[in-house]
C-alpha cells in the first residue's frame, strides 16, 4: 500500500486564496481516489493537505497500487439473431471475439426486451500510477481561483500564478505526469532565501520532514502555532504587555510565510497622540503588524511583525520595519495636521468634486439627499413621540461625507466615517454629531455594532437607503455573486439597525423617502428607471435580507419566517415580535391543527377560484344552515373582534392562542359540512366564511406556511 504525494509549486499564491485552494485540492484527490477505487477504507482520515505561499500538496497514505479487477457482463445480440438452429451465427462470433471469450462460454440472459446472449468478462484494473498520471493534471487544472492568469506563450492554461515545479510520488516512485509544461519528479524547493539547492523528496511520507529541513513548514496549522508562540515570546519582552488577538490577520500571515518568525519593534511614544484608530489601521491593514497593549490595556508604542525568515540576528529587519512604520506614522501625522487647516464645514462644498457614482453625481448631491431623507424620517419618528435631536442628525448628515476630501481618508480609505467623527470632535462639534458621523457606515460586517445613537442610526439608514435606491434606479442591483457596491451588506445593515434600535419605521417608508429624493432630482432625469418598478425590486430585495436576518441571524425556523413574512414584510421589529409569538405556540397541538385547517382553507379557496366559483367578501349569518357552520360563523365573528383589539395592542401570542382555540369548531365544521354544496347560495356563503377567516386571521402569520408534518420539520 504505497503513499501518494502530489505537490504543485508556484510563484507566490495570494494569501487570501490559499486556504480554500488547499481544501479543494485535498477534496479533489480524495474524490479521485474513491472514484477510481484506489482507496482502502477510512480514506478520509489518511489524507492530509498542505500549503504555503509557494505550494499546495496532498499526501494520501496507503493508496492501492492497483485498481481491483471487476467482473462485467456484456450484453450482445438477441438470441434469435445469435443462434440459428442451435448454431452460432457470425453475429455471435463477432460478439465473442469482441468480448475476448470462447463462443462456448457465452451465456443467455432474459430482460424485459427479450432473450439475449451475454458474456461475463473480467475488466482488469489499471495501475494507480497510470491512472493518477492521467487524472491529476486534470484535477490541478480544475482548481478554482478567484483570479488567475496566463503566462506561457500560446496561453495554453490559466492558473493562479506560474507553475514552477511538481512533485508526484507513489512512495519513492515518480509519477510520469505533466502540467503547465512542467514535468513532475521528486524535486521540490525549499525556502526561497534560506536554502539554495532543490530538495529531493525521498518518499511521499518523508515530505513534511524533508521540507522542514529545508526551512519550509508545510502544515499551516503548525505555522499558526509557531506564530502564536513567537508572538507570545516576543510580547513578554515588554512587561505586562499583550498582543491584540486578530484572527483575520493571523490567517493572512500564516499564508504569507513558509518559515515564520516574529520580531518586536517600537515606535516613538509621541505618535500615541494620534488617534488609536489611525495607528492600528496603519499597523494592521497596511503593514500587517500586530498591535500591542500595555498592562493597563492601552495601546503601547510597540508592534509585532511576522517574518518569513528564521530570525533577525543583526536587528536589520527590525530596524527596517521601524523605519517604514515611522514614515507611515509621519505621513498620518502630516495628514492629520494638514487636514485640520480646512474645517469640515468648509469641506461640504468640496464634495461637489468627489464622485459618488458616475451616473448619480457627487457626494455633495448625496449629502443633500441624505439630509432631506433624515428630515422626513425624523418627522415620522417625532410624530410617534420618539425622542431624537433633529439638529444633531442634520448636522451629522451634512458633515458625514466631508472626510472623503481629507488626505487622511484618501490615504486610509477604511477609516472613512471614523476620521470624520474624530475631526468633528477635534473641531468642537457636539459629541452627538461627532459620534453619529463616526458610526454612520456601521455595521460593516455581521460582528460590527450598529450606530450607538439614534441620530447616528437615522443618518446611517438614510445613507444606505440612498445608495440602494440610487443603484436600483440605475438597474445596478446585485445579481448572483456580483454585488460590487455591497448593497446586500448595506441592506443587512438597515435591517439590523431597525431591529437593534427598535425603530417602528417601515421599509416602505424608508425607501419611498429615499426614492422621493431621486424623483425630485432634476439633473438625474432621463438616467433613472421607472421609480415604481424600482420600488418593487427594492421591496423584494429587502424582503430577502429580512428573511436572511430572521433565519440566519435570529435563528427562527424557516417555516415560521415564511409564515410571518407572508403576512407582512415591511416592519422589521414587528416581524420579529410576530416570529417570536409564532415560534412560542407552533408546537402546541391546537396550533398545529389550526395550521392544517388553514392549509385546507387555502386549497379549497384556490380550487374554487380555479373552478370559476365566486363568493362575496362577507358571509351572511342567516344563510348559514347547518349547526356546525352556524357555530363556526358565530365564533369567527366573535374572535375577529377580539383578534383585532389584541393585535392592535401587539399581544401577538395571545392573539395566536385565541385563534388556535377555534380548533374544535373548525374541526366539526370540516367533519359535518360540505363546503362545495350544489346549492349556489349555500356554497358561496360557506366560501365567504372561509375567506373571511383566511383574511382576518392571517395578519400575524400565514398559518398555511407552517410545516405540520413531523417528517418535514428539521
Amino acid at each position, binding site marked *: 500500500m504505497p503513499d501518494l504525494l502530489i505537490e504543485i509549486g508556484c510563484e507566490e499564491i495570494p494569501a487570501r486564496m490559499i486556504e480554500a485552494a488547499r481544501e479543494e485540492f485535498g477534496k479533489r484527490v480524495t474524490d479521485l481516489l474513491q472514484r477510481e477505487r484506489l482507496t482502502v477504507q477510512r480514506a478520509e482520515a489518511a489524507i492530509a493537505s498542505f500549503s504555503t505561499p509557494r505550494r499546495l500538496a496532498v499526501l494520501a497514505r496507503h493508496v492501492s497500487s492497483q485498481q481491483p479487477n471487476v467482473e462485467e457482463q456484456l450484453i450482445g445480440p438477441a438470441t434469435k439473431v445469435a443462434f440459428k438452429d442451435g448454431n452460432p451465427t457470425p453475429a455471435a462470433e463477432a460478439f465473442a471475439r469482441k468480448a475476448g471469450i470462447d463462443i462456448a462460454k457465452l451465456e443467455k440472459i432474459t430482460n424485459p426486451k427479450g432473450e439475449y446472449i451475454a458474456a461475463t468478462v473480467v475488466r482488469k484494473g489499471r495501475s494507480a500510477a497510470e491512472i493518477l498520471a492521467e487524472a491529476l493534471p486534470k484535477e490541478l487544472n480544475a482548481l478554482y481561483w478567484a483570479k*488567475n492568469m*496566463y*503566462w506561457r506563450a500560446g496561453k495554453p492554461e490559466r492558473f493562479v500564478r506560474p507553475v514552477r515545479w511538481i512533485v508526484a510520488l507513489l512512495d519513492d516512485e515518480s509519477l510520469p505526469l505533466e502540467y503547465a509544461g512542467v514535468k513532475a519528479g521528486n524535486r521540490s524547493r525549499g525556502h526561497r532565501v534560506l536554502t539554495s539547492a532543490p530538495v529531493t523528496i525521498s518518499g511521499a511520507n518523508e515530505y513534511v520532514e524533508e521540507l522542514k529541513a529545508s526551512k519550509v513548514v508545510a502544515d499551516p496549522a503548525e505555522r499558526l502555532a509557531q506564530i502564536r508562540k513567537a508572538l507570545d515570546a516576543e510580547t513578554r519582552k515588554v512587561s505586562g504587555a499583550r498582543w491584540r488577538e486578530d484572527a483575520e490577520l493571523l490567517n493572512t500571515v500564516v499564508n*504569507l510565510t513558509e518559515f515564520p518568525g516574529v520580531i518586536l519593534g517600537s515606535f516613538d511614544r509621541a505618535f500615541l497622540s494620534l488617534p488609536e484608530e489611525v495607528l492600528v489601521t496603519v499597523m494592521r491593514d497596511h503593514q500587517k503588524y500586530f498591535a500591542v497593549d500595555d498592562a493597563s490595556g492601552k495601546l503601547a508604542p510597540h508592534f509585532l511583525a511576522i517574518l518569513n525568515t528564521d530570525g533577525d540576528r543583526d536587528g536589520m529587519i527590525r530596524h*527596517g520595519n521601524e*523605519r517604514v512604520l515611522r514614515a507611515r506614522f509621519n505621513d498620518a501625522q502630516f495628514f492629520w495636521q494638514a487636514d485640520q487647516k480646512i474645517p469640515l464645514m468648509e469641506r461640504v462644498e468640496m464634495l461637489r468634486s468627489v464622485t*459618488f457614482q458616475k451616473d448619480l*453625481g*457627487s457626494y455633495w448631491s448625496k449629502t443633500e439627499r441624505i439630509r432631506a431623507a433624515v428630515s422626513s424620517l425624523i418627522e415620522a419618528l417625532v410624530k410617534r413621540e420618539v425622542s431624537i435631536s433633529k439638529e444633531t442628525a442634520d448636522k451629522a448628515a451634512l458633515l458625514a461625507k466631508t472626510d472623503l476630501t481629507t488626505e487622511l481618508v484618501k490615504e486610509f480609505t477604511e477609516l472613512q466615517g471614523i476620521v470624520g467623527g474624530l475631526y468633528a470632535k477635534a473641531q468642537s462639534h457636539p459629541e452627538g454629531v461627532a459620534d453619529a458621523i463616526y458610526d454612520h457606515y456601521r455595521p460593516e460586517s455581521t460582528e460590527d455594532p450598529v450606530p450607538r445613537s439614534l441620530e447616528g442610526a437615522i443618518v446611517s439608514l438614510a445613507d444606505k437607503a440612498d445608495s440602494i435606491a440610487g443603484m436600483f434606479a440605475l438597474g445596478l442591483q446585485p445579481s448572483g455573486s456580483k454585488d460590487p457596491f455591497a448593497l446586500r451588506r448595506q441592506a443587512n445593515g438597515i435591517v439590523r439597525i431597525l431591529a437593534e434600535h427598535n425603530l417602528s419605521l417601515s421599509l416602505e417608508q424608508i425607501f419611498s423617502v429615499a426614492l422621493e429624493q431621486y424623483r425630485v432630482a432634476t439633473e438625474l432625469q432621463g438616467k433613472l428607471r421607472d421609480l415604481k418598478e424600482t420600488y418593487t425590486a427594492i421591496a423584494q430585495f429587502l424582503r430577502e435580507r429580512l428573511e436572511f436576518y430572521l433565519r440566519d441571524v435570529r435563528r427562527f425556523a424557516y417555516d415560521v419566517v415564511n409564515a410571518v413574512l407572508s403576512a407582512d414584510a415591511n416592519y422589521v421589529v414587528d416581524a420579529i415580535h410576530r416570529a417570536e409569538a409564532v415560534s412560542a405556540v407552533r408546537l402546541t397541538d391546537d396550533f398545529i391543527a389550526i395550521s392544517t385547517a388553514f392549509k385546507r382553507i387555502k386549497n379549497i379557496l384556490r380550487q374554487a377560484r380555479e373552478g370559476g366559483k365566486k363568493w362575496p367578501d362577507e358571509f351572511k349569518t342567516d344563510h348559514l344552515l347547518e349547526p356546525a357552520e352556524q357555530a363556526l360563523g358565530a365564533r369567527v365573528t366573535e374572535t375577529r373582534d377580539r383578534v383585532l383589539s389584541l393585535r392592535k395592542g401587539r399581544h401577538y401570542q395571545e392573539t395566536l392562542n385565541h385563534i388556535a382555540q377555534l380548533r374544535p369548531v373548525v374541526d366539526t365544521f370540516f367533519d359535518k359540512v360540505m363546503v362545495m354544496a350544489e346549492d349556489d347560495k349555500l356554497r358561496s356563503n360557506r366560501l365567504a366564511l372561509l375567506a373571511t377567516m383566511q383574511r382576518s386571521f392571517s395578519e400575524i402569520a400565514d398559518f398555511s406556511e407552517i410545516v405540520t408534518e413531523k417528517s418535514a420539520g428539521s
Partner: protein
Amino acid sequence: MSPPTFQELILKLQAFWADYGCVLQQPYDIEVGAGTMAPETFLRVLGPKPYRTAYLQPSRRPADGRYGENPNRLYKHLQLQVILKPPPNDVQELYLRSLQAIGIDLRKHDIKFEEDNWESPTLGAWGIGWQVMLDGLEITQFTYFQQCGGIDLDPISAELTYGLERLAAFLQDVDSIYDIVWTRGADGKTVTYGDVRLAEELQFSVYNFEFADVQKAWQHLQLYESECKALIDGYAAVKKKTAEEGAAVEEVRRYPALGAFDLCLKCSHLFNILDARGAISVTERVGVIARIRALAVGVAKAYLDQQQISFREAAA
C-alpha cells in the same frame, strides 16, 4: 561596504539588466504618470515579438506633489522599469539577484511577494502580480501583463518597476527622500536629493496646484486629442486604401502611429494637471478618462496592426 549613492544605485541596476541582455533604453522624453506609459512598455508588450528592455523613467503625478514638504511624497519620482517579453522561468530568482547586485544581503532581510494586481483603466491595461516587500517596505511592483490598450497579450510580458527613491532611502537608512545622497563630489562633499530636486518639487507643486492655466490646459487637451484622433482615423483610411486600391504596404508601415501615441501621452498628462487643479468636475471626469482611453486603445490597435504587417513581411 557603504550603501550606494542614488546614482550608483541606478547605474548598478542598469548594469545588471544590461548584462542580462536588456536593451538599455533612455527615459522617454514626454511626461508620463508611470514607466508603464512609456512606449517601451505600452507599445512593446503588444504583438508577438520578444523584447527585453530596462530604462529609467521619471514619472510625474501632479496631484501627488507636496511642495517639497513631505519627506515621503513627490510630484516626480524615478522608476527603473524592466520589461521581459516573454518572462524567463526563473524571473523571480532573477529579480532577487538584482537586489543582491545593489548590495542587499537577502539572508539578513525579510522578503515577501504579496498579491497586488495592477490596473489602469485609462490605458485599457491590467496585470496580475505582487508588491515586493523588503522588511515591510514596498520596493517593487512585479506584474505579469495580461491586457494592454484593450488587447489581450500573447506572449505575456513581465514588468518590474523599482521605486528608486524608496530603495535608496532604505539602503542609505534615511528618513527623508530629500536626505538621500545623490552622489559624492570629487572633494568628498555629498550632493543630496534635496540639492538636486527640492526646488523642482516646490515649483511644480505651485504650478500644478496654483498656476496652471485651467482654460489653456483644456484647450491644449482638446488640440492634442483632436490631432491624435485624426491620426488614428487616418490609419484606418490608409489601411482601407491598401486593401482596396492595392497601395503599397509601405504606406501603412510609415504611418506615424508613434506620433499619435505621443499626443495621447500629452493628453494624459494634461488630464493629470487639470485633476490636480481640481478643474475636472464629477460629471466630466469619467468622460475625459474614457476619451483618453479611446486614444490609447486606438493607437494600440494601429501599432499592433503595423507590427503584424511587418512581421508577416519579414516572415515572407
